[in-house]
């Protein structure tokens, strides 16, 4: 029984933390406009983070999602704009569902960061189900895929399509598509609509409904892992403010209206952290338990982090509302987190069904 991280994982955490502090502080994050930050991406590749969960046979490090969890938690803490989640989902999908040829061609390029992936699964933003996939075709594609994650940073898109009775994933060269960037609340999580006009994908493979659900669960867990770091950053920022801001002759953190809200934030973060670690572990070690674990973690985090984002701004008073102050950046992230890969209601309803209701 050991529900903690290893020495290697702790060293990895320190490495990511150092990278985020030195190379990607919030002052740098604020300058991002949706394009790939090439130099940061190269460094992330050099440090092996993009290769982490790619099998060694395909040029990867051959580690697991629970190792990647450490990277996501710490990049999330600093609101990193790097499309690591999309990249990891592409690696996971190809590794699980594609044939050897596709794996041999694409996994090494993913591990090296040469191919940068945006991912588009569901066309309907509120329907996580094979029926939410509308784009048709597999050999040539005509139509639009909306809500493609990290679309403006990507060199390639991994898109879900449907044919008569099958679901497919296709890899499309970003240059073969017409991309319309969609402005969103969180600029570190850019979206786009990829319009395809008779485009032949570079690769295509069928994916089962179960594997699609697995991939979606990996996305939900990944988002929750980033949210841990982000929520802890809000708590730290707000606690520091509450310790220093004097009103009515006392630091406002002395007043229970403030300190109890901060304590509740701690309770919630500890809790979705535990749920998310377990879910991340289950991806590789207990995949049968993943649907329940992922849904409980994402459901809890979606509501809790949304509230933390709002209160992080609110407890600061007017200064929290300013563009200059960092609390607002986390509020924006929390809005994206809530809806990405299923919101609280979707996941609670799913957990109820899994739990036998």
């Amino acid at each position, binding site marked *: 029984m050991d529900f903690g991280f290893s020495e290697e994982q702790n060293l990895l955490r320190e490495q990511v933390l150092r990278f985020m502090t030195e190379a990607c502080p919030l002052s740098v994050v604020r300058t991002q406009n949706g394009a790939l930050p090439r130099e940061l991406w190269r460094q992330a590749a050099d440090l092996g983070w993009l290769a982490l969960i790619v099998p060694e046979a395909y040029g990867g490090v051959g580690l697991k999602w629970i190792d990647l969890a450490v990277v996501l938690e710490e990049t999330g803490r600093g609101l990193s704009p790097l499309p690591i989640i999309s990249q990891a989902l592409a690696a996971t999908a190809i590794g699980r569902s594609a044939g050897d040829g596709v794996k041999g061609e694409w996994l090494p390029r993913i591990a090296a960061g040469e191919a940068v992936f945006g991912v588009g699964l569901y066309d309907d933003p509120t329907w996580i189900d094979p029926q939410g996939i509308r784009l048709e075709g597999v050999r040539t594609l005509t139509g639009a895929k909306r809500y493609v994650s990290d679309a403006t940073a990507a060199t390639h898109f991994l898109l879900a399509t449907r044919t008569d009775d099958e679901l497919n994933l296709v890899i499309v060269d970003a240059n073969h598509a017409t991309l319309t960037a969609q402005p969103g609340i969180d600029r570190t999580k850019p979206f786009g609509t990829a319009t395809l006009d008779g485009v032949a994908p570079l690769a295509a493979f069928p994916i089962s409904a179960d594997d699609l659900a697995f991939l979606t669960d990996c996305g939900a867990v990944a988002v929750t892992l980033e949210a841990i770091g982000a929520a802890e950053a809000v708590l730290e920022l707000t606690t520091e403010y509450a310790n220093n801001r004097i009103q009515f002759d006392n630091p406002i*953190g002395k007043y229970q209206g403030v300190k109890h809200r*901060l304590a509740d934030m701690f309770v919630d973060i500890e809790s979705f952290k535990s749920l998310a670690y377990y879910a991340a572990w289950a991806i590789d070690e207990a995949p049968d338990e993943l649907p329940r674990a992922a849904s409980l973690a994402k459901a809890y985090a979606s509501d809790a982090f949304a509230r933390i984002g709002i209160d992080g701004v609110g407890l600061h008073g007017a200064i929290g509302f300013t563009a200059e102050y960092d609390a607002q950046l986390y509020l924006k992230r929390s809005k994206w987190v809530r809806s990405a890969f299923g919101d609280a209601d979707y996941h609670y309803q799913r957990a109820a069904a899994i739990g036998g209701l």
Partner: protein
Amino acid sequence: MDFDFTPEEQAFRAEVREFLAENLPPRAERGRGFMGEWLKQVRNRRWVGFSWPEEYGGGAGSLTEQAILKEEMALAGAPPLGTSFMGLAWVGPGIIQYGTDEQKQRFIPDILDSKVNWCTGYSEPNHGSDLAAIQTKAERVGDHYRVNGQKIWTTGAPWADWIILLTRTEFEVERKHDGITCLLVPMDSPGIEVRPIENMAGDRNFAEVFFTDVQVPVENRLGEEGKGWAVTISALANERSSIGEVTQMFAKLESLKNLVRSTTRQGKPAADDPAVRRRIAEFEAKIAAMKYNGLRYLTKQLRGEPLSSETSVNKLHRASLEIEMDDFALELTGLAGVQLPGSEDAVDGGRWARSSLGWPGVVIGGGTPNIQRNIIAERILGLPKD
């Protein structure tokens, strides 16, 4: 990270399961002699005081084995391992840590053998959450302390044999945490009067306890004079993993799901109502969070890393679940839900209605939710004290 147990730990779990299969009949079949036999059996296996050192008659079980034992006992719906919850939970550990050799020999075996029941004299009429401000006075008179004052909300006082009593021996102190002295007092001492208080469920488990010139021999002092606060704190910290509780909460959640399955609202199955389904799943997420929080904190302890006040996290979850799960059951079942045992319309024999009146024992005893929030805010986050 792994959730596997060592072969030794697995063998221990198997041993506990085997024992329970052989020695724990279903609730309905537990006859009059059952409890005495049960206590003897678990005592023989050294599962009572399982975390205590062997030299005092404990089981010297590892942290993981303690968790396994608690989990299996809870899964099987087993009765407690002793009749004195407080004796086992903190009086015994406190005596092991702070007591003299003579006190250990005198008190520990009786706790392990369920021969004496303990109660805890902490709260006073004017000092509950602000425990360190207690005023019950103990004056040194020769080889005795003379105790005067009043305790209240003393759970178990109506039938306890002994009380672990927090008194003040010094009133002129800079910090109110100083000058507190912990005494072990027989409840049949002359000058002690117990007046039971009826709670909202109609039970008379707790009481006011009055002390008038009660003489307590100096040899019954636990720890040094004036250092009783440290005894209190470390004794309360002896409550370790919440794994047994979590197992009970999961069992309660299953009962609640069964209730949902058998209930209709406005003529339609409650189980089809998304609002109902969501509440159940929210409970499950909280209980699962308690489980994995508990395992993370257990791992910290196993690695020898100090635990701060993280256990307050699960105490807060438990507090809200204790209230909300019963309350949800009542709301779900309409006016049938508020019927008590004895009513022919009572839901599940009135179980939910009854426990909806019982939560303060868990939620308020041992520190209210707001005190837990203060603890987290001050000790973990480093915010200023009130």
